[in-house]
């Protein structure tokens, strides 16, 4: 018999999350955006985003906002991932497969270092 998730479990999760937030300085949130238009989806954008979400879950990375958006307008570079660190310019990565997504999380989001070889546009 599967244990049914209850909203009480979620309330506990919320309390924990709030405690963590209070301990931290409000340094702003990192944003990760994945393009999810038809071309992106066909090129594997869902798997890329899923990898990012799994990483956040497994590495317990708080204060990251994950967003998906429609077509970004660079079809031939799909899947596209954009990373915005607090107070920094948006960085756009192209043809991001799950392995590259893991690297982007580790090196850019955790380590703060842009992976220039995956970068497109500026």
């Amino acid at each position, binding site marked *: 018999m599967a244990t049914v998730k209850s909203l009480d479990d979620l309330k506990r999760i*919320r309390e924990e999350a709030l405690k963590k937030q209070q301990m931290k300085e409000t340094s702003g949130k990192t944003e990760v955006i994945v393009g999810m238009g038809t071309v992106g989806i066909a090129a594997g954008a869902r798997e890329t985003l899923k990898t990012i979400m799994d990483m956040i879950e497994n590495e317990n990375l708080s204060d*990251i906002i994950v967003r998906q958006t429609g077509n970004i307008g660079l079809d031939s570079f799909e899947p596209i991932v954009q990373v915005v660190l607090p107070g920094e310019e948006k960085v756009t990565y192209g043809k991001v497969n799950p392995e590259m997504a893991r690297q982007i999380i580790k090196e850019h989001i955790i380590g703060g270092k842009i992976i220039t070889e995956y970068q497109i546009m500026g």
Partner: protein
Amino acid sequence: MRELALHILDIAENSISAGADQIKISVNEDFLNDLLTITVEDNGKGMDAETLEKITDPFITSRTTRQVGLGIPFFKAAAEACDGTFQIESEVGAGTKVASVFKHSHIDRMPLGDITGTLQTLIIGTPEVNWVFEYVVDQNCFVFDDQPIKETLDGVPLSEPAVMKFIREMINEGIQDVRQKVSSTI
């Protein structure tokens, strides 16, 4: 696309582009009548009759911004290749409903695929939309509504790691539960 779940994701993206803030996805596996029905229903801005007529034709587009692309013709073709039907109803200012019916046992029917992955993408990635997912297998039903979750969270983001885990497990368990109930009655 290799999974119906990817088509669902793509169709739901159209609903988001149409400005919907209520989107309901239903998957109904009816083994008794050998049918698989997928519907995506939104309260977005809708389309007029003329646009609606053009929408299933991949070679006609009136868009200026990329709101609706090849997704709908792909989905229609996928259903029709499986002795199925495709229907789209829309009303300006009220919303759009897309419904695809497949012959469940058809050899060319794509697998449902990673429904949880599709829902996670939509729910976590578009928190401003109220997502409802209904999964029916014969007479067993699982309904996921993210509204009570958001109310309980009261400002804590959905992309909080423990929250993402909660949502993922809740959907997975719901889907598994409905499937198990069905297989245990056969």
